[in-house]
């Protein structure tokens, strides 16, 4: 029975390696439930897009491709800084870890800020589904359906981002208290997996919402 006295090893595990493997596997299982959660929204999109392709394309033209593209780059960059944060944690370098956590948070907040600007534009242009929805073009009814999907999907995605930024703040506190080390960085690894997952959701949302019928 090796290393039962190690301070960061929970009693049910044989070794730190086993503990680490179990923790990240548990996180992956959670992410699979998240794939199914967002999968439901993507399925709705896949059902309606072929039925109302023209309305979807016309509605998509009201999205700002510049802001959407910048946000995609911001999020990819944040995934890179998150990966660097995990790497710093693996090596037990707390200084760089704190820096990369802050950078990731700032990029996440930048994304949310730009998203907020986009939402405000949609509000001003009366493109929020509901009684005040105004759309001049073919098939406004199904353009409204597109915007319902747009707000449901990007809204759920933004909620995940907000939670992610909160978790990063908590990690920063743990780091400053010296609770993260090369032996115990599972929380950083799991947060990284979550953050990258949220990035992947956006990688699909961007072409499916912003880039349809542009030519």
């Amino acid at each position, binding site marked *: 029975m090796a290393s039962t006295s190690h301070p960061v090893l929970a009693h049910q595990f044989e070794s730190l390696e086993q503990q680490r493997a179990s923790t990240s596997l548990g996180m992956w299982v959670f992410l699979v439930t998240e794939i199914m959660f967002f999968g439901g929204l993507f399925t709705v999109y*896949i059902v309606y897009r072929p039925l109302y392709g023209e309305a979807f394309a016309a509605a998509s033209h009201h999205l700002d491709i510049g802001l959407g593209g910048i946000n995609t780059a911001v999020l990819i960059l944040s995934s890179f800084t998150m990966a*660097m944060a995990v790497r710093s944690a693996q090596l037990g370098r707390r200084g760089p870890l704190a820096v990369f956590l802050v950078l990731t948070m700032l990029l996440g907040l930048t994304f949310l800020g730009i998203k907020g600007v986009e939402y405000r534009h949609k509000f001003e242009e009366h493109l929020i589904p509901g009684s005040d929805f105004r759309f001049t073009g073919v098939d406004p009814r199904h353009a409204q359906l597109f915007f319902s999907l747009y707000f449901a999907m990007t809204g759920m995605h933004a909620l995940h981002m907000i939670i992610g930024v909160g978790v990063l703040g908590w990690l920063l506190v743990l780091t400053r208290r010296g609770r993260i080390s090369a032996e115990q960085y599972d929380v950083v690894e799991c947060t990284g997996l979550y953050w990258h997952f949220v990035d992947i959701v956006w990688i699909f949302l*961007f072409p499916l919402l912003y880039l349809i019928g542009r*030519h």
Partner: protein
Amino acid sequence: MSVHVVPVKTYALILAILLSLTMITVRVAFMDLGVLNNIAALTIAVIKMVLVILYFMHLRHSSRLTWLVVAAGFVWLGILISLTMNDYVSRGWLGVPGK
């Protein structure tokens, strides 16, 4: 199973590829390729996803069990989408009441 620390160079390379693919996908969206537009956009998105999963999410150096869990996730997503579309696509094929 010891920790595999990925070199910074690898992460930077993945970042550069992901950003380039984003620019390519925007460019391609403005070309008229017919049905190929959708295929190109989704292919690029899938490539980006695979790169993020393999490198940023460390799947490349993870256990077989983790691979199995990830694969299972996508299989279930495939079931969700394919069985739903199976219904929506084929519902109008037969002129039976109650469809």
